């Protein structure tokens, strides 16, 4: 009986300390103004190769090589993702400037839900790629939505952002990143 109690106490203490440690880790990570300050191993490297279906033309596959020649912004989203809704007006305004092709990466979604989402909020994307089982997303290191990658004309990943892109991120990070790879204003 006494042994049981010690065991119970130890379990309680372990669960408690584990939780506190985990949450502390979470707070410390969120501490960085931007979580992707953990530099993505992809930055400066070629974007993963892929061949993915297109949302609006089921049956058509787009190969990563077809996107070369001009820079593009890969924006990971899902209809289930509240953060994507938050950044949607910002992405839309950026796309409307036609400064860069914005490619949607519809991740872990359902076809009907994704179509409905675009229908309701508007479709800012030049092209929407589909990755419903999330298999290709692993190559990109995607771990949440929204997440956004800037890929240059040679297919090199130049910039990455985790979380919604708001006006501040746009002004402070994304527009300078576009300037840096020489995308004309």
């Amino acid at each position: 009986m006494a042994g049981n109690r010690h065991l119970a106490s130890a379990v309680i203490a372990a669960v408690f300390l584990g939780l506190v440690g985990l949450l502390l880790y979470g707070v410390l990570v969120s501490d960085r103004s931007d979580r992707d300050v953990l530099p993505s191993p992809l930055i400066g490297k070629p974007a993963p190769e892929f061949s993915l279906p297109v949302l609006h033309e089921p049956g058509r596959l787009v190969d990563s090589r077809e996107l070369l020649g001009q820079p593009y912004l890969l924006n990971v989203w899902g209809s289930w993702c509240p953060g994507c809704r938050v950044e949607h007006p910002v992405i839309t305004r950026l796309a409307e400037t036609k400064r860069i092709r914005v490619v949607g990466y519809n991740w872990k979604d359902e076809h009907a839900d994704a179509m409905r989402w675009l229908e309701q909020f508007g479709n800012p994307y030049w092209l929407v790629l589909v990755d419903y089982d999330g298999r290709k997303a692993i190559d990109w290191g995607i771990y949440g939505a929204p997440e956004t990658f800037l890929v240059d004309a040679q297919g090199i990943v130049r910039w990455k952002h985790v979380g919604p892109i708001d006006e501040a991120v746009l002004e402070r990070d994304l527009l300078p990143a576009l300037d840096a790879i020489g995308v004309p204003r």
Partner: protein
Amino acid sequence: MLPELGQAALLLALVAALLQALLPLAGAAGGRASWMAVARPAAYAQLALLLFAYAVLTLAFVQQDFSVKYVADNSNSLLPMVYRFTAVWGAHEGSMLLWVLMLAVWNAAVALWSRRLPEVVMARVLGVIGLVAIGFLSFLAFTSNPFLRLLPAPLEGHDLNPLLQDPGMIVHPPMLYVGYIGFVVPFAFAIAALLEGQVDARWLRWARPWTNVAWGFLTLGIMLGSWWAYYELGWGGWWFWDPVENASFMPWLAGAALIHSQAATEKRGSFGGWTLLLAIATFSLSLLGAFLVRSGVLTSVHSFAADPGRGLFILAFLAAVIGGALALYVLRAPGLPQGRPFAAASRETLLLVNNLLLTAACAMVLLGTLYPLLADALALGKVSVGPPYFGTLFIVLMAPLVLLVPLGPLTRWQQEQASRPLALLLPWLGLALALGAVGYFMAPQGPLKTAVGVSAALWVGLGTARFAWSRLRASGRAFTPEMLGMVLGHAGIAVFLVGALLVEAQHVQREVAMSPGDSARIGRYEFRLEGVERVQGPNYVADRGLVQVFRDDRPLALLHPEKRAYASGGQIMTDAGIHAGVFADAFAALGEPLGNGAWAVRLQVKPFVRWIWAGALLMALGGFVTATDRRFRRVSANSPAPRAGARGGTD
């Protein structure tokens, strides 16, 4: 000037909380009556000060004082009057103010209704609530001050998040907060009992109604959130396993378990230690919920801005409260008396299984919510946990609970012949299964899901009715509010199951392109788009559709689905047009214009969807009704404490 006074009131409330915590706890330890007597006045003072601070912030919104940063950030001059009141809790700082105000209300209520408690117990309970209040008030005053000035004052503010400009949102957060923070009362009673070193039936009898009321409010709050998501987000779904929903669902599950284990401990003295631990866990999960929503640990999830300072502060507070409580528990719990033994076939066993399943479900939700963080921390790769995980596991864990619900009330305490309740319920089980089979053959679609839904709901409903009937017939035995509350709560589960399972089996959804004059048919319903007009709202412009709905070719309703663009920020919101019916909702939402006056329109028929919220309402009502039982107030402070479990009289 006023905002500065509001800020001063916050600081004074913090002082009152310090007095309320330190003096009575020290007084209780040292037996000084005069120190203990500080607790009540300090509680009332806190409430008065926080009411004042809250009124000041509300006034700043009503008068559009954009020199207050929080007001400028969360409202503008176009905002309709009613939303100026609700904008107070539209973002982090104000909602924290509402939170501490709710805490002060519970605090004062305990102070007011604790006159029959022995002075020492009262001092300890209020002292513990005071400690919690210190944490939240310093968090508010030092990291989240809602009265910060913005000078020079801007001429125009931003806007309240359009998602929050909605009647459902007016009451959702306050209800939720009342529920969340209400669990501080059973928590404080548990800590007081541990400090005392004994769990007698009395502290439980006092704590029980508080738990039930807090749980009832939490149920209402979650219900309103679900209802709001249903009509405002325009998806027609009602639960999304979003981390913030999970944050409120965990204390709800733990609270449901607590309600049951408190009843067992109060009446039979069984699993007293477990009940204390559960009271601590339930409140800890409330704190964890507050932490997850406000710390930014789970980013890209919800609207409260991430701020590491706040995150660290609230984490330290969380660790202190929970760690302290658990340490006390580990030290004191082994000395607690054991309850009476009970046989394998007994109500105690059923309640234990109930607790096991609810706790497991709670742990499952916790794991799923934190798993992305855990995987990140352990560098296991990046993952997201979605509805498939939650939905599947939740059904697996709740199915046995649904099977057991009708058995519980009909099973005797301590020892029961397993055949007796089973024999009582067998005909009703048969009826439920038979009607499920009828559903299988009648259903226009999803026959298997329909059959399961009908059977499960009828099994719980009929089994609960069977209990109520046998109690009413048994002469000379009172049908107490406590029992009525239990029957209502269990009936609520039955009603909820009708809604949740049948909407899953039977809902129909179509996306159609419609020009004015076009019709589309779903089952007995026909939708005709009459036209789409441009309307100007107070702070948005909208395309408003006019959709005439017919049922069996008779006009039923005129729906006005809207698609709004808000003036500031350009956010697009859909406002679905819904005709609510007892047996089905007809639902229309506007999509994109397709040119030539045609629109993409989403039409849905959702049978029994209202029953989901009706069921939740019944459960909440059950919690409230139970709390009115006079038995919880009967024991006076002077009467000798009955030994735990000495009173089993009410069965």
